[in-house]
């Protein structure tokens, strides 16, 4: 069933979601998302500014958190730790790619 051409939208830091939008896209309730913010699992752009706005790239973190919660039965504290470590691995991989790009090719 072919459909027309669909426009794809970047999920990057130049775009922001409200708490309700982000919760709906991640398949969470607004209450769950607030709880996760309290646990430090995800942080709004500015914690002090209400209503909270979230960088669109946070959606991926939340979707991943939902998968990990479902498949490993993790509670929020353990979940936050896993996410933190995964994000650190990703930062290291990005840095490694950056260094590799500077190395002369073969």
């Amino acid at each position, binding site marked *: 069933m*072919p459909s027309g051409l*669909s426009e*794809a939208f970047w999920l990057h830091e130049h775009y922001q979601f409200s708490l309700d939008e982000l919760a709906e*896209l991640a398949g969470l309730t607004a209450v769950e998302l607030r709880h996760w913010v309290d646990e430090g699992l995800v942080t709004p752009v500015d914690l002090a500014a209400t209503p909270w706005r979230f960088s669109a*790239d946070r959606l991926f973190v939340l979707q991943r958190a939902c998968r990990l919660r479902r498949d490993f039965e993790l509670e929020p504290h353990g979940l936050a730790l896993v996410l933190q470590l995964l994000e650190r691995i990703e930062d290291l991989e*990005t840095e490694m790619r950056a260094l590799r*790009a*500077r190395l*002369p090719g073969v």
Partner: protein
Amino acid sequence: MKYKDYYQIMGVDRKASAEEIKKAYRRLARRFHPDVSKETDAEERFKDVAEAYETLKDPEKRAAYDQLGSYQPGQDFRPPPDWEKHFADTPFTFEDLDLADLFASFAGRNARASGAGSKVPRPGQDYEFNAKISLEQAYAGTELTLTLNASEPDERGFVHHRPKTVKARIPKGATEGQRLRLPGQGGKGSHGGADGNLYITISLLPHPLFRVNGHDLYIDLPLAPWEAVLGTTVEVPPLGGAVRLKAPPGTRAGQQLRIGDRGRPRPHAGAGSLYAIPQIVVPAAVSDREKALLQDWAEHSRFNPREHFQRR
């Protein structure tokens, strides 16, 4: 219907206890879960493991699965007579169902029987797609035709798999690992629930000349010794329009020659930088004339490339 050996997938005995099955699942999940695993076939493997565990962890589903009997994986089989009573009040055909969908609706029937309304709006499933695109496609933006394995429930709650084609416009400036959302292109919602979304994760195919770091591009710039010494102007092969690059006299190997705004376009404004990294390359063989010239140069030069060796 094709048989899947859930016990074999989990690596446990058919008589394994619930505790043993849980342990096996946890071990396999740590190894193959796509969010934590680096194994190449992680996603496929974990899908099988999750499917097997979904059925084996539930005593009712496990009993129904055991009643199917044991076959070779992939073997076509028919469930025993009346077996479908687990699922529906009226007989139905197993032809285009697979085992996972069947057991998924098993829970659905329990939910229906307990009166937990089947008319509750349910949002459609989100789909994920990993798209490999070339640097040229990322640079200019591109159109992709994606073929997804969509799972759509019919009016009785049974899930059917159908290929679904989506044409997506990818805006210019994609970087490695970046994600996009196509609103409403996921699974259909039921009973008035919103349609799911389609998420695309971009990965960039290696390019024969350019290496990528975020929005910056790197290219090796091979120079002959005389070009490095005397300086030269080089035409760098284009990704978005040709670039003429001046290597100044005395260019050293490994130093970075930066050309601002000639990297990859950024999503909002401007572009990254293009870096050319000079390398001094020498011919594999030289003529007698060249050799004589070089010897002449060596005799007339006071240059000592290893001066710093003697400073200690």
